[in-house]
Structure formats: structure tokens, C-alpha cells
């Protein structure tokens, strides 16, 4: 049978694929949501509590920073995931399936994302923060109106990178009980030598990553006004202003 016939007859594709695709999306969706929910404030805290930050707390910063670094750098994700199975059971009542896998996915991705958030926020010039403080902003207003807003293009890029990483992690999670495209590729591709399913899964994963990347790039560009070339409707605006100057 040739590859294209298989696409419509292979039960791995016709029956299992839609279900596992949904499971993968569910894992990415749930863990992406919690990563954003926890990682963003954590990143803000890491940047604000740094010795030269908005509210220096050197000791706390060092401790939390250490934990974050160790989770992201020292512990391989596969091992982290296995070690978190009891926690997943505690939180979700089960140790298998996409919802349970989302627990370890989130815990793996949160420190990674928080680090990226911290780096993006650090790129906001201290002059802008000074300007905001001098005009009478509270620290909270500096965070919401200056740091997060000015760093938004970088934050969107950071979240995009995190989601792409989650796609990879979710495939790994699939093998050890999470379900999804990872398990499909493992079951059919590795255990049954079913190349067609393997190839289709790879193509779908590549497409998911591409879609995330394109959407992320598009969104980042939309909110980026840092250079004239990317400043949204900038070209038109500049020409209009120039005409006004000449006319007046």
C-alpha cells in the first residue's frame, strides 16, 4: 500500500490520531496557561527583587533564583517528570493522561519561562523606570505600565519559545503516560514499525511548532514600536505628519 492510501485507511491515523492530537493540544493548552499564570509573576519578582531592581531583596532573590536555575539547568526534564508523578496524582487524582502530564509540564516550563521574562524585563532601560518613578508612579504602576508594557514584544517572544518547548516536552510526556502525539509515535512508530504514522506525527508536530512561531512573531511585531520600520502604521503616519509640517 502506498503512503497516501494509508492516510485514509491506517487505524493509527484515522482512529487514534484525532484523539491524540486533541490530547497534545490539551497538554500544551493547560500547561501553557499555568506557565503564563505563575511564570510571569515569578519573572517579575526575580527582576524586581534583584540587587539593582525596583524592590531589592538580595537574599530571597538568591534563594528563588537558585531553585529556578536548578530546575531548568540541572535536572533533565524526563527525570523531573517521573519524580513529579506523585504530585500529579495528588493534584489531579490520576498519574496518567494529558491532565496529569500537564502538572509536570507546567512545573518544568514555569522556571524556564520565568527566566526569559526576567531577561526581557531587565532590557527595559533604567531611565524609563526613573522617569516613571519621578512622575509619581507606585512600584506596581511601574511594573504594569512600564516594565510589562515596554517589554511586551520580548515577553511575547519568550512565551512563544516556551510554547514551542512545551510541544517538545509534551511528546516526551506522552511516552511516560501523558498520551498525545508522542505516545502515538512511540506506539506505532517504534513498537509496530509503522513509518506512515511516524511521518504523519512528525509533520503534524512541525506544523504545530510553525503555527505557534508564526502567531508569536506576528503578535510580537504588532506590539513592537521600538523601531520606525516595525512601528505598525508608522510609515503612513510619518508621511502625514511631514505633509502637515510643510503645509503649516
Amino acid at each position, binding site marked *: 500500500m502506498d503512503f497516501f492510501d494509508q492516510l485514509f485507511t491506517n487505524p493509527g491515523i484515522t482512529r487514534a490520531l484525532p484523539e491524540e492530537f486533541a490530547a497534545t493540544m490539551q497538554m500544551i493548552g493547560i500547561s501553557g496557561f499555568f506557565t503564563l499564570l505563575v511564570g510571569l509573576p515569578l519573572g517579575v519578582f526575580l527582576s524586581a527583587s534583584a540587587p539593582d531592581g525596583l524592590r531589592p531583596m538580595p537574599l530571597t532573590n538568591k534563594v528563588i533564583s537558585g531553585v529556578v536555575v536548578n530546575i531548568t539547568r540541572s535536572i533533565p526534564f524526563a527525570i523531573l517528570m517521573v519524580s513529579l508523578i506523585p504530585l500529579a496524582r495528588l493534584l489531579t487524582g490520576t498519574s496518567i493522561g494529558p491532565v496529569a502530564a500537564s502538572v509536570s509540564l507546567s512545573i518544568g516550563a514555569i522556571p524556564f519561562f520565568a527566566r526569559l521574562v526576567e531577561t526581557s524585563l531587565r532590557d527595559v*532601560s533604567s*531611565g*524609563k523606570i*526613573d*522617569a*516613571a*518613578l*519621578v*512622575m*509619581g*508612579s*507606585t512600584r506596581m*504602576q511601574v511594573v504594569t*505600565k*512600564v516594565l510589562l*508594557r*515596554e517589554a*511586551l514584544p520580548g515577553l511575547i517572544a519568550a512565551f512563544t519559545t516556551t510554547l514551542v518547548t512545551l510541544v517538545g516536552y509534551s511528546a516526551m510526556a506522552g511516552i511516560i503516560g501523558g498520551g498525545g502525539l508522542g505516545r502515538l509515535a512511540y506506539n506505532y512508530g517504534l513498537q509496530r514499525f509503522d513509518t506512515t504514522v511516524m511521518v504523519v506525527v512528525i509533520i503534524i508536530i512541525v506544523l504545530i511548532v510553525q503555527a505557534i512561531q508564526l502567531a508569536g512573531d506576528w503578535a510580537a511585531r504588532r*506590539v513592537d*514600536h*521600538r*523601531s*520606525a520600520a516595525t*512601528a*505598525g502604521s*508608522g510609515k503612513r*503616519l*510619518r508621511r502625514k*505628519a511631514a505633509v*502637515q*509640517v510643510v503645509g*503649516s
Partner: protein
Amino acid sequence: MITVSDLRKTYQQGSRTITALDGVSLTVPRGSIHGIIGHSGAGKSTLVRCLTLLDRPTSGSVTIDGRELTAVKDSEIRTARRRIGMVFQHANLMDSRTAAQNVAHPLELVKTPKADISSTVARLLDLVGLAGFADAYPSQLSGGQKQRVGIARALASDPDVLLCDEPTSALDPTTTDDILDLIHNLTDTLGLTVLIITHEMNVVKRICDSVSLLEDGRVVEHGRLQDVAAQLDGKLSRALLPLPAHRPGRMPALELLLAGDVASGPVLSDLGRRFDLSINVLAGSVENLADSRFGRLRIEVSELAPVEEMLQYLQSQGVAAKVA
């Protein structure tokens, strides 16, 4: 009115103590422009940070219009700061906000009604000459235009005092003059008290009423522009009226400082006629400062000239002079 008295600021760097401000005192009368000039590392930025309480001074006090900022509790700093407008070297605008949104920023912080914000913003942008640029992002503006937005933003909370930290150091000479003139006009129309930090003498010459020279965290000279310029040996006077590089002659040389009316008179020809001498000008610099004329001259006279008598004569004519 701004009063700074005996302001000290030290930084601890490991075991070393760095004294950035070493007892700075100064007074800026209401409605006037005071320049603070000093070399790199003199403590200019530290002074501004202490004035805005971005850094707490180690000791000393800062009083603005009768209210002592340094006595304000941490929780009230924000309200106190709103009476200070601040202009930065690099404007420090938010890139994600349009010109109008940048100017609106201080107003949003105190929950000003939308309609009031938009009318205030329009008025301020008009005031700084950027009426057509409300919707432009900073990346679409020139350096001078960004600085104008920065000035409009500083004025949004209707402050009594404008602090400018090197407002023109990143601009070309023509734009510098435009921005300085704008600050000058605003001072007059809005009755602001302005403190302007700079390392460019040109800024002082163009708009300041008075000036302080900061060296190693200390004010070493200060006064009204016309008073400091009239000091024959003053550092500020030498910077205001610099003598161009010249080759020293072999004859005795005198240095003269002419201030006010005498600077427009025929001082040299009177001197030459009185002592029957020919006078050779080696170098000179003449400026209009604070609406009067100032000149510093280095002249060469014959070896036989009665130098002591000449100095006495010059003194009697109201010209400060000495043997160079």
C-alpha cells in the same frame, strides 16, 4: 524656590566609602534658571537623584517651595514628586506609547478624567511645538522632537519646578539652541523654577540666570551669571570667556576683564593714549551674558611700559587686570 542645604551622599562600595556629594548648598529663586556645571564624576547625576529622592541623601535637606522633601515619609514621596517635572538626557519616553500617550502618562497615574487628559495633552503638545505629532511613536521622532515630548510630559502634572539632567547633551548644536529657547520661554510663561544640569558652558551662557560649579561633590563657585563672569581669576569666568590658544609674546603681557558698560568703551585706545604705548592684542573673547557685555583680553605692551601704573589706571576705570 529650591533650597538645598549641606547635602551629602556617600556610597559604600565594599570597604571603600565614595563621597559623591560633600556638603552641597544652593538656592534657586522662584522663576529663575540655575545651571549646575561640572566635569564627569563631579556628582551632577547624584545631585539630581537626591533632589527627586530616587536616592535618599545621606544627610542634608532639600526644600522646594517651602516643603522639605527630605523630611517626607516614604509613603508621601510620590505626591511630593509630582511637584517636580524632570527632563532627562535621553528623554526616556516609553517606546510603546505615542507622543500623546507619553504626555498623558503622569495624568493617568492620578486618575484624571479622559476628557481632561486629552485637552491637557493637546495643549502641552502645542506648547512644545508638536501639535501635529500626537500619534507618532518615539521611534518616528527626531532627538529634538523626543526631547520636546519629554518636556511636555514633565509639565503634565503642572509642577513648580523643572529639573533637567543634561537635556541637550545628546542633541546637535542647532537643536540644542531650540530646546534651550523652549525651556527659557516656558520658564517665563509658566513661572517655573528651573535647575539644569550640564557639562556644556553653552547651556549656561544661553539661558541661565545663575550658576554653580560642582567639583568632587562640592560647590566651588556660584553666583549670578554676571557676577561670576566678572571674576578675573574665576574658574567659571575662564570657562565663560575662554582665551583661545595663542603663542606667548616676548613682551610683558596683561590680562584684562571687562564687564558691563566698560566692555563697550574704548578701553584699549584710552590706555594706549594715556601711556603713549602701542598695544598688541594676543587673544581675547567677548560675549553677551545676562544682557550685558563681557570681555577677557590678553594684551602685550612694550618692555618699558609702566605696568604698575597701568594696572592702577585700569582699576580706576573699572577694569580688572593683572600681569599675565
